[in-house]
């Protein structure tokens, strides 16, 4: 091979290797970008968006609750189940807050998710009901899906315009977390996602 031929061979080799290196670098960047973020993502992409209209059967009586009935109120929506240990832990914080904030027209909605209504009723018989507090059943897990629930318990905060403004992920073992979030909501401050613990899945 002549000098020129060898040079061209090197050029092609260089380009091949350079392309391969570039590909590896790009893949590395892509993968490291994935590694750098929390795979257990709790932040809800629904924050800042309006709550979809829904209806759900009441847990304790006949008939269905329509989301229209909540229009104009601040709503604390809690997804729970009798099998969820964290739900037991946070139950008093929710029922206490429901009583405390009733005069501010803050409505509490407990959505029994992935559980049998009779188990849900047993749970309430044992741990007590909030007053005022509305309990509904998530038939076919549609509401859980609508809210992008990742596990239990999860609590969503909805402002008077019907916009999801906050999410508390995990059991609210410290009642002050919930109180502060509701205060922030009433005062129009930003809430976002608050992670207070791990969520459970059955």
């Amino acid at each position, binding site marked *: 091979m*002549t000098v*020129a*031929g060898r040079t*061209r*061979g*090197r*050029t*092609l*080799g*260089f*380009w*091949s*290797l*350079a*392309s*391969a290196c*570039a*590909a590896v670098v*790009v*893949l590395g*960047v*892509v993968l490291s*970008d*994935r590694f750098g973020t929390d*795979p257990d*993502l709790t932040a*809800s*992409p*629904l924050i800042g968006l309006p709550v979809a209209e829904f209806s759900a059967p009441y847990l304790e009586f006949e008939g269905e609750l329509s989301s229209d009935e909540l229009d104009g109120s601040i709503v604390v929506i809690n997804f729970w189940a009798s099998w969820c240990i964290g739900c037991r832990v946070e139950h008093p914080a929710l029922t206490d807050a429901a009583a405390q904030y009733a005069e501010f027209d803050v409505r509490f909605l407990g959505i029994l998710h*992935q559980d*049998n*209504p*009779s188990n849900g009723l047993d749970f309430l018989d044992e741990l007590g009901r909030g007053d005022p507090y509305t309990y509904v059943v998530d038939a*076919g*897990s*549609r509401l*859980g*899906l*609508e*809210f*992008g*629930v*990742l*596990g239990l318990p999860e609590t969503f905060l909805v402002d008077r315009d019907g916009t999801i403004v906050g999410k508390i992920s995990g059991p609210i073992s410290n009642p002050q977390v919930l109180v502060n979030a509701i205060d922030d909501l009433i005062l129009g401050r930003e809430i976002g996602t608050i992670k207070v613990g791990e969520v459970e*899945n*059955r």
Partner: protein
Amino acid sequence: MIPALRRWAAPVALVILGSVIGIGLASGGEVEPTVEDRVDQIAANLRCPFCGGVSIAESTSSIARDLRGFITEQVGAGATDQEVYDYFVARYTERVLLRPVWSGWGLVLWAVPFVAVAVGVIAIRSRRRGRVAVPAGDVVDQLDHVRRDLGELELQEAAGELTPAVAGRLRASYLEEELAVAAAGAQGETADAPRKVDRKRLIGAGILVVGGAAVTLAVIGAVADRDPSGLITGGVFQEADDPVDLATVTNEELEQVVAENPDVVGMRLALARRYFQAGDFTAALPHFLGVLDRELNAEALASVGWMTYLSDEPDIAEDYVERSIEVEPDFPQAYWYLGNIRLLGLADPGGAIDPLERLLTYELPDDVRTEAEELLDVAEAEL
């Protein structure tokens, strides 16, 4: 550069390209899928948000069943696949997708092989262009011209028209020119030889790409249909509720597997079912209860109900079977149990009619249908 690297860089790049093409071929090419196919496909491409990383299709959890029901509903109502994916992405972010997407980093990932191919093509083309820069005919003309100049110079020097100094300078410059043209000619003459080599290389490259694609297709074909509960990775059992051929496993072996994997509900249920069908209720009961400790399972509830009825506790039995129906309204066995319990255990023929009528709405083996019809006749007669 290390020679080995230079030798292997191009073939390796080509095999990778082949693999990418193979993946593309393996994942495409479906023709007119049915609604069920589409639901399967979508469920396989979506991560079950509750189930620790497996797809909705793979998971047997009740939430996965609910999500699958939702997908079926949407597809049935005319939603496109993309609309269903968008719905999930809007609520769970792109993390819910198990396949890379054509945007953001996903797009970069997809683009890499195509960019690599484009760079390769440009490199090969520029190499060709460099090689044909000096046509062989021109070189011969130029050499003749230079040699003519040198001849004339010698004649002029001999005739005394040029001083030796000037003649020397001119000769040097002509010789330099001759050397340069000759070198360029040598380059041009070799132009045809590597072209033959190129053809060989092209064939080799083609074999690498096609071979890479074929091997990748074969590998994908071999692993795509494997049982999701299989231990191909050597890991622990996951979600082993999926169909596993248990026919060849003895009860003792199954007991051991269940003891080692206490939370794998499917295996425990299969074992309990074996004992139950063999009439060994003492062995079946703890396993059905073990299943119920872990999930609300219609079969376990109904079976426990039936065993309770056979132990002369029809009230409790009725409660279990009713809960089974609540959990899974389409488990026909439960209606058979409930009809029997109400008619024969609770002397409630009126209550037995509904479940028996419901039972008869399902496709049943002939003997079961006959028995159910007879029992219904008895219930109606006793009313």
